[in-house]
């Protein structure tokens, strides 16, 4: 009985793995729409910022960045770069994690959200 249960669970896990692979390819936007690759800034944003500021910069634990909010807060790009690099309050400093070029890329990306 227990062995049958284990067999069923194994089959379900295998099916789950197959479904995951199928979904990865079936939902691939590039396969149907030919969308352009994500910019380096977008990838950096997803990896470092989205968990607090939301996947689209809509805000979450961290403040909203999208719809011009970050441009309003930091009219100067250089001021925003300094802020991201050095951090302040609950905003962590990314100067130790990202290169100056990467910080500029992610900052410029946030200003397009």
């Amino acid at each position, binding site marked *: 009985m227990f062995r049958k249960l284990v067999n069923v669970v*194994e089959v*379900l*896990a295998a099916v789950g793995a197959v479904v995951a692979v199928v979904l*990865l390819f079936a939902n691939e936007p590039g396969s149907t729409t030919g969308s352009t690759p994500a910019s380096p800034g*977008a990838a950096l944003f997803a*990896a*470092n910022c989205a*968990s607090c500021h939301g*996947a689209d910069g809509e805000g979450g634990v961290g403040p909203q960045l999208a719809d011009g909010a970050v441009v309003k807060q930091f009219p100067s790009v250089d001021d925003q770069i300094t802020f991201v690099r050095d951090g302040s309050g609950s905003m962590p400093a990314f100067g130790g994690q990202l290169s100056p070029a*990467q910080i500029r890329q992610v900052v410029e990306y946030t200003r397009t959200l």
Partner: protein
Amino acid sequence: MTHSVAAPAGTEGTAARRLVLVLLAGSAVAVALGVYGRAHDPTHEQPYTLFFSSTIQLKVWFATAALALAVLQVLLGLRLYDKITVPRRTPSWLGDAHRLVGTLAFAVTLPVAYQCLWALGFQSTDTRVLVHSLLGCFFYGIFTVKVLAVRVRGLPGPTLPVAGGVVFVTLVGVWLTSALWFFTSRPPRLPAY
């Protein structure tokens, strides 16, 4: 009681060839995941959160559950190989329990891996992220090797325990470069769950 019996002529060669094929299959899986992650355009989506505050928390706790299950599976495996003697008598269901726990650990990693590949892809923005991406791909490759080592007969004796050990160590590495990093380095106001 065990006997050391000389392998018949050709048996070692056959076992080696089978092992190479199994390793090639695992390598193919790992490379395919890496290629997909590199070629795929990250969507930056958070497709599911369940009862967590966001997908990253879901991934962290699912990965932690997978690690806990993997620890349990290693302990069960050690008992199967008589490396530990608790419980003193081996229950008849121990092997099935070992399989079940391992299967559940694998199943728990699937939504994590899917979101990683789908939303983030293979990244190399810093050392931690690069190592995590590499280990994530390697994990499913060596997991494939381990599953095949169970199913394919005639492989060299140590293949299965070695593959199982490498799977476990790799999962630990994946967890250290993701969940532990999250627990220790997340911004102060980011919820833990």
